[in-house]
């Protein structure tokens, strides 16, 4: 059972380049999330989705875009990469958005902007 799969695992971008971080889950979860984790910090929510076609901003959405065309996939788009976006990105999913539902995380994408 794959759970939450993120690709790529590592990527180096130049300033101003764009890229899409891929996230797929095979648990038929409605809720999906994107987080970033900066060194020595906790995870911060970028965007979330409560189902196909529905997305909303989290705490730190600037510089990112998302889409949710299917239940399984939740890609994160960086349009104009900036050094401040160097971070580890985690995608997560949960069956419901209730407070006691733990989220299942992928293994992350480590992104460096140079």
């Amino acid at each position, binding site marked *: 059972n794959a759970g939450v799969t993120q690709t790529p695992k590592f990527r180096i971008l130049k300033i101003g380049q764009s890229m899409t971080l891929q996230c797929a889950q095979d648990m038929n979860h409605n809720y999906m999330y994107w987080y970033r984790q900066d060194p*020595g910090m*906790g*995870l911060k929510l970028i965007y979330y989705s409560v189902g196909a076609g529905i997305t909303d901003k989290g705490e730190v959405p600037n510089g990112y875009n998302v889409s949710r065309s299917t239940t399984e996939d939740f890609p994160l788009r960086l349009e104009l990469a900036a050094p401040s976006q160097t971070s580890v990105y985690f995608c997560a999913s949960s069956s419901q958005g209730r*407070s*006691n539902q733990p989220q299942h995380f992928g293994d*992350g994408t480590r992104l460096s902007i140079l």
Partner: protein
Amino acid sequence: DQQVKQNSPSLSVQEGRISILNCDYTNSMFDYFLWYKKYPAEGPTFLISISSIKDKNEDGRFTVFLNKSAKHLSLHIVPSQPGDSAVYFCAATSSFSGGSNYKLTFGKGTLLTVNP
């Protein structure tokens, strides 16, 4: 401003002894508190949670205690094993703008090292 604080960046204990990881919070509207465990190059994995209306929850070697008046929770691991060595994140849930969907607020994490 940090709403969930883990003030100890690291903790080192001997195998077989108790590990106590602490977490403080400021938002009295938090609904549930969760602990996640993270190994290097992997994503966080859910460990144990506690409702804001409870004061203790136990699952095998792991027990979480909640002191609402002090806005403090702790994770106890007894006995500690070398495989427990990981970063432990404290997290709390609250609703988005009072709605029915909930978000997680994470602390910075505590690196636990269990020495054989």
